């Protein structure tokens, strides 16, 4: 063609960033939804929560497959388990708790009115995308919050698909429009802008330390949780066979992608060889020093941790490192030094487990403390023991806020195989740069307005039983005290309507005459 068509990558006009503009409109939508949810009753909320949980549960496998195929992380079977646990599982767990009705405490003369956060911005990690979408959405809805899901860019498709399905189910069950929304095209600058926006009431951040710190820096109230790096102490009083089995199962669960997975075994020297033998039986591959070196080189390059190994299986990792470990569920790398400079004792998020020998409980504790000095403070630890003193000493001394006992750490510390709050989000407390030390539960999404009566015995507490704050009888209107305008103008009585009409007509005519003049 003869046109001087301009061939450039840049459009000729500088146009506004539509992605941000749409995200900003989503925030407005969420505020509407939050306003409506905040005055929704318990029965409706339960109906919505159940519908959402069912929608997630019904397609748990589909999303597990989609997540593995999009991110390349984890094991489909295990993601199915997590997706089920984080949908119906979580809802059933909290079924008997009421986050909606006022709580009346006669003894203290206090009534607590639940006050949801409002708009929750939920950051979704690439490692556990769908389970976290389910989990944070349901916790937010149980407590009557609107949620905006902000997936890690590498998991955005599956998160968007799941979020739309949940939103659909919620809407059909009576939730207001936009109760659940998702940012379809997340980028780091976009997420930072959203976090700093005053229309967000609460950020719930799971992800790498930089994301979590950015959440706290944003100025918006945030619940962020730090990374894990769990030591697992095995002493000479435990059931070694069971310990070995649990450790291998936990370490291979979803290819170690839960942040609660075991990082390093600290075995009492007296039982270490037997423990290794039992782990072999449980399908652990014990690496030679050369293989250990190869794994060290594969996992930790000069540029830092190699994220390509996250959530990959043992077979793949061995091959990538340059050796083979057929049939192995995990790769055990014996190390001599348990200090941060030994990179293998850091968080690895793949089925590579460091293994060190300690002389006893005291050295076990100092080793655990040493490895957590780099990462993992405030997170999780595990111990296999039948000696309460060892358990107590270890728990008191290591900087973890939860210590799973005689359980795999992956599902133990995250509350699925213990009685901790089952959670995809593990509070790492003050030590771990977080404002919460618990596993994230619905309780973190709601605060209370408190009606507090005078303590004096002669001031009686009110009878609040049965009062619904959002359905009180209409307070007497001041308007009823006012005489009717039309009555003022004359008329009243039985045929006042006709009189009023006539009067209006006259007034209108007079006024028109005045105006026309």
């Amino acid at each position, binding site marked *: 063609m003869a046109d001087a068509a301009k061939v450039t990558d840049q459009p*000729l*006009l*500088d*146009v*506004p960033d*539509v992605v941000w*503009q*749409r995200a900003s*409109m*989503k925030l*407005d*939508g969420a*505020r*509407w939804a*939050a*306003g409506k949810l905040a005055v929704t009753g318990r029965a409706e909320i339960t109906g919505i929560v159940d519908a959402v949980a069912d929608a997630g549960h019904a397609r748990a496998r589909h999303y597990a497959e989609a997540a593995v195929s999009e991110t390349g992380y984890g094991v489909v079977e295990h993601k199915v388990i997590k997706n089920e646990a984080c949908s119906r599982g979580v809802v059933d767990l909290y079924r008997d708790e009421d986050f909606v009705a006022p709580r009346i405490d006669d003894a203290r003369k206090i009534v607590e009115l639940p006050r949801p956060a409002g708009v929750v911005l939920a950051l979704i990690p690439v490692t556990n995308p769908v389970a976290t979408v389910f989990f944070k959405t349901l916790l937010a809805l149980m407590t009557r919050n609107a949620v905006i899901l902000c997936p890690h860019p590498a998991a955005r498709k599956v998160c968007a698909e799941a979020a739309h399905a949940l939103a659909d189910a919620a809407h059909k069950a009576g939730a207001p*429009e*936009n109760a659940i929304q998702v940012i379809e095209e997340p980028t780091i600058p976009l997420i930072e802008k959203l976090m700093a926006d005053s*229309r967000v009431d609460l950020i719930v951040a799971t992800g790498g330390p930089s994301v979590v710190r950015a959440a706290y820096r944003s100025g918006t109230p945030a619940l962020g949780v730090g990374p894990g790096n769990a030591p697992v102490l095995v002493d000479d009083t435990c059931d070694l066979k069971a310990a070995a089995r649990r450790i291998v199962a936990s370490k291979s669960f979803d290819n170690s992608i839960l942040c609660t997975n075991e990082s390093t075994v600290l075995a009492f020297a007296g039982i270490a060889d037997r423990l290794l033998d039992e782990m072999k039986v449980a399908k652990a591959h014990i690496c030679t020093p050369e293989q250990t070196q190869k794994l060290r080189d594969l996992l930790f390059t000069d540029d830092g941790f190699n994220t390509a190994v996250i959530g990959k299986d043992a077979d793949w990792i061995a091959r990538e490192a340059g050796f083979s470990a057929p049939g192995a569920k995990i790769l055990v790398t014996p190390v001599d030094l348990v200090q941060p400079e030994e990179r293998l004792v850091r968080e690895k998020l793949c089925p590579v487990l460091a293994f060190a020998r300690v002389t006893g409980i005291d050295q076990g504790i100092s080793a655990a403390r040493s490895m957590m000095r780099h990462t993992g403070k405030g997170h999780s630890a595990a111990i296999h023991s039948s000696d309460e003193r060892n358990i107590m000493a270890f728990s008191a001394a290591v900087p973890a806020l939860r210590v799973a006992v005689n359980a795999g750490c992956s599902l133990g510390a995250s509350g699925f195989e213990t009685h901790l709050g089952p959670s995809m989000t593990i509070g790492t407390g003050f030590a771990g740069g977080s404002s919460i030390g618990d596993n994230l539960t619905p309780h973190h999404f709601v605060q209370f307005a408190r009606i507090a009566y005078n303590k004096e015995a002669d001031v009686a507490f009110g009878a609040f039983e049965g009062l619904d704050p959002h359905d009180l009888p*209409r307070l007497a*209107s*001041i*308007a*009823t005290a*006012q*005489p*009717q*305008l*039309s009555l*003022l*103008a004359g008329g009243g009585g039985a045929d006042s309507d006709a009189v009023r009409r006539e009067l*209006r007509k006259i*007034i*209108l005519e*007079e*006024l028109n005459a005045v105006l026309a003049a």
Partner: protein
Amino acid sequence: MFDYGLFRFADKQELFDKSIRFWNPDKTKFWQGVGVDLVIDRREGYCLYDMSGRRLIDLHLNGGTYNFGHRHPELVDTLKGALDYFDMGNHWFPSVARAALSEELIGTAPGMKYAIFGAGGAEAVEIALKSARYATQRRKIVSIIKGYHGHSGLSVATGDERFTKLFLADRPDEFVQVPFNDIDAMERALAGGDVAALIMETIPATYGFPMPQEGYLNACKALCEKYGTMYIADEVQTGLMRTGEMWGWQTYGVEPDIFVTAKGLGGGIYPISAAVVNEKCGGWLEVDGAAHISTSGGAELGCIVAHKALEMLRRPELVANVHAVTRFFADGMADMMQRHGDIFVGVRQKGVVLGLEFDHPEGAVSVSRALYEHGVWAIFSSLDKRVLQFKPGVLLSADMCQEILDRFDAAMPRARALLHELSKAA
């Protein structure tokens, strides 16, 4: 001192004095007479700031001109970006901006054929009426009593005599008016088979937004078809998603031969309007495309802003917001009416287009003043002063809607007092 760089005013009073001296003495004094001493200075979002610094939430929106709020950043950035490349353009030539916007507009209204651009609403109405006359080769125009279509030659002739008599611009022989919602009167007006066009606002704004009765607009359209008259929908105040759909006629299921859009189309930052016509009414564009000429009609900068405005209006997030605002005020005003039913006697609503009825022929003037004193600017309907025009924007937030309702509630005692004074005076 108000120093705007290019000009300076010592204070608000100097502005009033100069407005009376150089601009428009009656209009300036009128507002002072009704207790509204507003001179808009800063403006941002849905808020206006008087020269005194007082903040007012804008529910007047100049009839939807500020549908998106004032100086919406996305529109402003769009215009700024366009200014680095375009200017108004040359109206004689085809242009990328005009072609692209025409295609967008036609895309919102399947069945339409061309978009013809003007600079303001009246000009677009003018184009619509001329197009209908060309298509039918008839002269007569039927409109609604108390309808409003602007103040240019043909458009003003369709309107209230308050605006025509003064200028000797009424033309009763060619311009016939019928009462709204009276289908028999409509048939009588059209039955002669000599009417080029029926022009009506989908919901008559300046008349206080009386709602068309069930089936009325469809019946009008059917009569037009029966008698060979073109149906022109004036969508200047009801278009652009304000009734919950892009165009008000879409919510009533009528398909006009021509519809007119203006005001909000330019996002409140660059004036542009359009008459969108079907094939029949666009006939003259095949014959003599220079028969209507407008240097600033369809200026390219305006086209780019309008393009952005249409794109924004189609976003699901925005549509959801319109629904939310609609429901909020439906519930909120029902509640207000229950509490203030002695003076507040009716709500007319379609989407974010609302008319609030007060129990006095001049009621809305008093209520407008009471609201003004309470930080809300909403104007009465010029042609039915019982009714307050209450026009929330499509992007209003939940928080601001609640604030509006709280301020409305707070203003009611003052409105009541003003109304009682009025009643006693009468």
